[in-house]
């Protein structure tokens, strides 16, 4: 198991590479979902604003 | 009116050119500043590196080209900005003349006022970097073609960044990556000229970029300006 992580001495380069890729993958999922949630909230807010305006 | 007849188009282009010339003569500082910048930047390199001409000659192609690039970018900020502010650009769009053609005329004027002087200055600045005057024709040929393509490329970015706050920095960020081929071929041609070899191959490549730019860039610039003026 230790040998697996040591990767014959390349560990210092290999695992950070995989780590940054993993970070990018997760980050983009989070960013996308947040963007969608924000856009939904904004759209609903705009809807409520418009409907309350027309209620005059 | 002189709508889209060929004679009318030439007349319109000439009017644009004349206007650019007149405006430049009224504000000579604006025309001279990029040239002064080119000189100053070139002078910085020996000071920042070494006074040894042999070593400077080795980096001269890069220094001259980066300097010319940056100086061109400075000048590009003014290509459309003032005309956009005072409404002239809108008049061009509404005029019934081909906007592509009018913008090309502006770009030609811009090159005559910036790229051409930079090209003529380069051999002398090169002397300061240890470049022999025998290389002057090669250096100038490369820079003439390169600055021409740069003016064309830059017109696209200038159109796109109309109305963007601090558009000058963005303009540089947009234009420089697109200018990489020009830089690569141009610096190589200059390098060959300095060493005394024939730069023809690289000049042909530069030339093909210039032609490609001439055909496509004005169209993109016109589209960009139309969008920018909305």
């Amino acid at each position: 198991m230790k040998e697996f992580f040591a990767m014959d001495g390349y560990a210092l380069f290999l695992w950070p590479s995989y780590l940054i890729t993993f970070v990018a993958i997760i980050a983009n999922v989070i960013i996308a979902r947040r963007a969608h949630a924000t856009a939904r909230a904004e759209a609903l807010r705009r809807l409520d604003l418009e409907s309350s305006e027309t209620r005059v | 009116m002189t709508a889209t007849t060929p004679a009318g188009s030439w007349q319109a282009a000439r009017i644009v050119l004349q206007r650019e010339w007149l405006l430049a003569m009224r504000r000579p500082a604006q025309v001279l500043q990029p040239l002064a910048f080119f000189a100053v930047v070139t002078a910085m390199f020996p000071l920042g590196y070494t006074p040894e001409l042999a070593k400077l000659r080795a980096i001269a192609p890069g220094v001259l080209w980066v300097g010319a690039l940056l100086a061109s970018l400075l000048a590009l900020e003014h290509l459309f900005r003032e005309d956009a502010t005072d409404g002239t650009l809108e008049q061009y769009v509404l005029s019934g003349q081909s906007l592509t053609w009018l913008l090309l005329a502006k770009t030609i004027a811009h090159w005559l006022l910036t790229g051409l002087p930079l090209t003529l200055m380069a051999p002398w600045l090169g002397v300061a970097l240890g470049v022999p005057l025998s290389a002057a024709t090669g250096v100038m040929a490369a820079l003439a073609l390169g600055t021409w393509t740069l003016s064309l490329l830059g017109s696209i970015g200038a159109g796109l960044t109309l109305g963007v706050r601090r558009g000058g920095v963005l303009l540089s960020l947009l234009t420089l990556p697109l200018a990489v081929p020009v830089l690569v071929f141009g610096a190589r041609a200059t390098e060959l000229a300095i060493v005394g070899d024939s730069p023809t191959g690289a000049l042909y490549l530069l030339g093909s970029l210039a032609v490609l730019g001439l055909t496509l860039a004005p169209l993109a610039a016109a589209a960009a300006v139309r969008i920018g003026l909305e």
Partner: protein
Amino acid sequence: MGTNWAWFHRFGSPPHVYRLAGLLTPWFAWPAALSILAALYGGLVLAPPDYQQGEGFRIIYVHAPSAWLSVMIYAVMATAAGIGLIWRMKVAHAAAASCAGIGAWFTVVSLVTGMLWGKPMWGTYWVWDPRLTAQLVLLFLYLGYIGLRSGIDDLGRADRASAVLALVGVVNIPIIRYSVEWWNSIHQAPSVMKMEKPSMPMEMLVPLLLMFLGFTLYFAAVMLVRLRAEILRRERNASWIREALR
């Protein structure tokens, strides 16, 4: 005219695309996850070490797919932008906007993993080899696109201006690639990290292909989520939104 273009124009309908994107996302997301996990196992555990590069070659399993994504995403972005510009489709512009951030991220990943691959191979973190240099220029192209978008306040104008930029960029990319390779060959810089794909044994190749597939599916899934957000941002007309969001 016999051809029915209705299917194409339905893609111009924001509510239709919004719903479709929502339905499709899990169908991309789960296969993506499976593919990537399988590829990870295959690449890290099953594949034998390389003859020359030992265990170090395994970086290819994250570097190559990232580089592929960075270029492919730009192409998708430019295509969507072009469609938006020519057919005046807001949805297409929304699609282009959805691509930019993801593309930029993976360009950075390909650069970083490229550097981490290069250090044990060539001894330095950075080498001006054609592939890395081209990736660097691509990153600048992405940043320029994103910068232009953020610099223009009006969303419609930002869409159209950045569309022109994306199209100019995509035309330039082959030229830039060629010039960088030309530049590199003249100055005989150290050679590229060569992993000849055809000569790779199956145990090495299959995980790599799975990774490519997984990354592509992943991009589709994430892009669809962002697309939904971008569509909502561009919709003024309220009626379908109320239905779709409640």
